[in-house]
């Protein structure tokens, strides 16, 4: 029984994805047509690109809640600059904005030695304000509608440029995480930064670069979204946070660092994507969709708690809960 449970938890991403697809196919007519799946994949790519960055960060024991705001900001910059410097340079600058935002997060977390949850909550507010600031809270439009059509075009009956890019990137991340030494080091940093430091791993640098990576990908997702819709809006991405975290968590990456996989995230993203499309095809209102993604998130985190081994050796407490100082006195 226990072995079965462990096995189920190991392959739970596949099980959940399979169940989602089966139920969706039963409920939604024509769900398994390539064009529907392609649409779902394209939708999932937005969540997925941000999730790629978050997977790496979570494995390193950190979190970035500002992804949705960076997504909006990068998209806006890439649209506004189109008139001045052309579409491609503008897109590159947009991605750069994402990288810079990530670098700010990383520098503050590493430099101030503060909890990344709270810090990125604050920078989320800052980046979102900047997005409202530069656009005067109005959506902005780009110059070339034809480009949007090209980007939204479906190749091989299922892939758009965006979804193909997402899949290539996540496979690359998988290879990097599992086959290279720097990749392995990320896991070491996430499960025990002090021990990682002792063994000569530059924990701070890995955490910093992790934030830059996450910011860059959120920026890339935002730029692509803006190009596809030919619009940049300061409210873009505000509902993404829960979906992205849910996707990564469905994929088995632990919120406490040190454990996770890119392929798991791929499964998680596909699950969330197929679920979203199924609900949209049934024209279920947005707030019910919110309830569903929130429920999935909570349910999976609780299940994760229940299934995975309970005791951890002292001193290996995960980064997101570890920040407790040793020095809190009782004399307050």
């Amino acid at each position, binding site marked *: 029984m226990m072995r079965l449970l462990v096995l189920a938890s190991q392959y739970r991403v596949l099980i959940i994805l399979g169940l989602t697809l089966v139920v969706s196919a039963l409920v939604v007519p024509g769900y398994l047509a390539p064009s529907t799946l392609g649409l779902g994949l394209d939708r999932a790519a937005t969540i997925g690109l941000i999730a790629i960055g978050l997977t790496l960060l979570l494995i390193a024991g950190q979190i970035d809640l500002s992804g949705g705001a960076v997504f909006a900001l990068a998209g806006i910059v890439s649209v506004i600059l189109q008139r001045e410097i052309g579409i491609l340079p503008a897109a590159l600058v947009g991605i750069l904005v994402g990288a810079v935002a990530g670098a700010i997060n990383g520098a503050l977390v590493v430099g*101030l030695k503060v*909890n990344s949850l709270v810090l990125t909550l604050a920078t989320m507010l800052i980046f979102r304000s900047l997005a409202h600031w530069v656009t005067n809270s109005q959506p902005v439009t780009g110059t070339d509608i034809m480009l949007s059509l090209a980007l939204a075009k479906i190749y091989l009956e299922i892939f758009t440029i965006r979804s193909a890019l997402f899949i290539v990137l996540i496979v690359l991340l998988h290879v990097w995480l599992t086959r290279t030494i720097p990749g392995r080091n990320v896991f070491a940093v996430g499960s025990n930064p002090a021990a990682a430091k002792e063994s000569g791993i530059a924990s701070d640098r890995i955490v910093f670069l992790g934030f830059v990576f996450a910011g860059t990908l959120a920026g890339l997702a935002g730029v692509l979204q803006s190009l596809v819709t030919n619009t940049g809006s300061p409210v873009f991405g505000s509902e993404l946070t829960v979906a992205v975290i849910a996707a990564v968590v469905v994929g088995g990456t632990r919120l406490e660092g040190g454990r996770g996989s890119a392929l798991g995230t791929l499964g998680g993203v596909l699950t969330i994507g197929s679920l979203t499309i199924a609900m949209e095809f049934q024209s279920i209102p947005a*707030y019910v969709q*919110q309830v569903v993604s*929130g429920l999935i998130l909570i349910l999976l985190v609780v299940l994760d708690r229940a299934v995975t081994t309970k005791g951890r050796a002292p001193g290996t407490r995960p980064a997101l809960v570890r*920040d407790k100082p040793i020095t809190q*006195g009782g004399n307050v």
Partner: protein
Amino acid sequence: MTDAAMEISGVNRNDRFTRGSRLVDLLSKAGLVLAILAVILYGSFASPAFFTAGNMLNVLTSMSIVGIVVVGMTFVLVVGGLADLSVPATIACGAILSLGLQPLIGPVPAFVLAVALAGLIGLLNGVLVGYVGINPIIATLGVGTIGLGIVQAAVGGVIVYGSNTASAEFAKGRLLGIPVVVLIFLAVALIGHFALSRSFWGRWTLATGGNYSAAEASAVPVKAVKAGAFVITALASGISGGLLGLTLQSARPLIGSGYEFSAITAVVVGGVSIIGGFGSVPRAIAGLVFVQLLTNVMVLQGVRTPIQGFVLGTLIVGAVGMDAALRKRGVA
């Protein structure tokens, strides 16, 4: 270790603690009072409308609604619960229910029931964080999404209007020249202050946030205390939402958005430790006064909302950084 040795090391440690926290005390208390005075001084010079009875009363009234949430949020931070992101949903729940139930069961029972149902969100948060051990940010983000979705579904995503003029007049009215909302805020703040600083529950809260394992070893019911902090915040948010609904006589599902940030900003700027174990209600309210006065000056000066958000975000980053820096000082 012998008793004598323990005593000596205990004395030394205590000495370090008091030295550390005296510095923390001095800097955060005096610093905040000076900052408040500076804002008042600047505001009086910059705008003739600032230091008038009417404007101050406005600040006080708008401060009261978020202030009630601040009192609850103080418990969450002190107990080491990072932050409660379900506040907007809880406020919306309180506002919509207290107006929506009026025609059915009368204004006072409606208000009480609304606050109780809002407390239910807190109970869910509390169980997930305190007993299941889920990261508070993830739990409250998920529960908040679910709660808001349910509330939106319940009212069909539209606005609810008040139907009882007497309750509206009471909420907008004054007692002895002071707005009722302000009086309720003061009452909540006083209860919160005494509960945190004088009662056994408050001592448990501080102990749990300061050193979870030590508190657990000293037979403090740590799980219940941690869960309780989220219930307290939810009840406070419910009261706040109910009052907001009664004052505006209308409630929409997004009525509470942004309140979580205002509350967190106030508590953090007030010098309550983000890591837990240290803080008080007066500190948090001092932080609130500072932030509210600053916002008021910005509004009077015609500073646009996005820039205000930018300033608030920067304030959180600064305050969190200072918290970390001072904590390090306390250790050295």
